[in-house]
């Protein structure tokens, strides 16, 4: 991981503060999260204190500080999906997985985020499972979906 970090940091050799967010976004895209080591290295590279970078990264939704799960769910909570019942889906997922949005289960299998408007307003509620869309989800289908995903993880 440190070697990849070097490659990414080299791309931003000028080390200006405007590059901070694109740099963090690249690291996040590469590793799935921002580790403490990467934040410290970025701070050293740009001449910014770790505190400032951490403060900035926690402000935005995109950055995670723990790795996301093997299955990452994104649940659309835009107005249309809300009116079609996405709140009960979110509650059900919280119940089944026992984690909050942004967290990962202890065994590292699942994590989920709440996002606004994926764009499938007519086919809501919409969720994304590891990048794939699933439409017209109902709260009753959630337990079966989780079981199916657990099965896939175990047998991967």
């Amino acid at each position: 991981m440190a070697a990849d970090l070097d490659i990414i940091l080299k791309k931003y050799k000028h080390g200006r503060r405007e590059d901070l967010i694109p740099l963090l976004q690249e690291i996040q895209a590469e590793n799935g999260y921002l580790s403490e080591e990467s934040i410290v290295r970025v701070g050293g590279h740009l001449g910014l204190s770790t505190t400032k970078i951490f403060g900035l990264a926690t402000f935005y939704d995109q950055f995670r500080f723990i790795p996301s799960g093997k299955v990452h769910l994104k649940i659309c909570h835009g107005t249309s999906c809300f009116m079609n019942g996405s709140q009960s889906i979110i509650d059900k997922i919280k119940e089944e997985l026992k984690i909050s949005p942004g967290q990962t289960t202890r065994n590292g299998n699942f994590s989920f985020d709440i996002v606004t408007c994926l764009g499938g307003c007519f086919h809501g509620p919409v969720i994304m499972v590891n990048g794939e869309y699933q439409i017209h989800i109902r709260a009753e289908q959630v337990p079966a979906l989780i079981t199916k995903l657990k099965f896939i993880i175990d047998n991967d």
Partner: protein
Amino acid sequence: MLFTIQVNNKKIKAEKGETILSALNRNGIIIPTLCRMKEFTPTGACRMCVVEVEGKERLVTACSQPVEEWMKIKTHSQRVITARKTIVELLLSNHPDDCLYCDRNLKCELQRLSEELNIRERRIKGRKIKQRLDQSSPAIVRELAKCILCGRCIRVCEEVITSTSLDFINRGSQTHVGAAMDRDFNFSSCIHCGQCVLVCPTGALHEKHNITEVQEYLNKHDIIKAIQYSPVVPAGIAGELGIKYSRDFDKNLNAILRKIGFDKVYTTGTGTDVCINEVALQLSENIEKKADKPLFITACPAWVKYAEQFVPTLIPQLSTVKSPQQITGILIKTIVAGQLDVKPEQIFSVSVTPCMAMKYEARRDGMMRKGISDVDSVMTVRELAKLIRLNGIDFTNTEKEPADEPLSGRSSSAALAEVSGGMAESVLRLIYYRTTGKEIDKQVFKKLRVSATFRDSAILIGENEIKVAVVDGLTGLEKLRSAQASGTKYDLIEVMTCPGGCIHGGGLPFITSKEDLKNRARMVYQSDDNEAIALPCKSPSMINLYEKLLKENIEISDKSIFFTHFEKRNVLL
């Protein structure tokens, strides 16, 4: 260019380019503010200073809106008062209710606002902020539940101290102020200077309390209780207790301290004199050897921590002489222990300082001898005032008493050292005297006495021209670096973290204006002019110490107790 504006139906004069607030203040109209700090650009975070301006749809913040000709302003209309009241009520809705137990009870800005706005009912109820108590730092305690997110501490730490140890974390109602990776303070790059404590409006940041420990030990009868205080403390105490300060108030303070229960009362000034002396010896050696690198004065423990973290390459250039507090402390534990014929562990040694970082310094590795700390407990001036009140001392009616021997006297250099530039001046004065036999004309140091974050000068002593630099507040380090980069070679550099020097330390009463600071500096310069003994080597306590006591105590006669060491620190920068 002056023009007229109308405020509350009265005409007043305002200057083009100034803000509404400054125009109002100049004309005696006071409106409440909260997040505002003088000499810092406004951020508009608290919205307390809103006023009604005719023609504008919404209320505007007076701290940032520039005045325009013929503006019609209402500062206390019903709409404005409701807005201010609601804002404070919103703050109170998730603020803990323990004013009675809070460190800032009776001195809190939020309490004052609540009283001013006549808030008498808990109308808005809310979920309280998550409690988090961070007591990991030896000097500063954070209570996040009381934080109102004004952002003052962050700005001071970034813009004045440049160590940027604090920032906002998360967003919205989840926001809180924290250090890197949201860890506790002792993992961060905090240098414990305490400037953040001075600006915090509530009890969210305050000093670690040693007063309970001290009170406990005061009740023990088989322990010798010794206390030392630095030269600026008497002025600070007078201010805290609300009594008039006189030049020899320190004699009253000695009596007060004895009444509280301290067996021995010493002045840190003796230690300062030793410190100046040893630094002068080091500098003279450097000059003789024609050393290439400058000598940094290390009386400021926050600066030392800063150097160990951020510029470890400077560590070889730091003077290994301990700070005045530690020197006095070790003298108590060795010479005084010998005189009283007790073991060092039977002495409980307390130090009263204007500084917060001294609490951290007393715990450093290198500040102990044979497992016993040089100084056992450090209290700030504010804490001493509380201790005096706690013990019911009638401080308006005390005798004048001298401090105890052998650490009772000091030269005026020791007092001067607490102003930025003073220590460097004192060292050079001593070297001049030793070289020429005469006392130097103080006019030579004019350039070092101006108010700027970086000052330098060249002083001619004998055949050598000694280049000296003074960094007043860590923002001056940049200027030092560029001066050195352009080729100037300094012999002596003094760095003080708190702007203005120890007279603006984190442990002194809160000051509200730059005028206060100037007054304190002026008092120090005056006492330096008027006191009889200017040089450390002429102080009787010093002479006694070096000629007699150190020689008598074989164990410490090599003076190694006056020196310490430094190391690179591994913290999250």
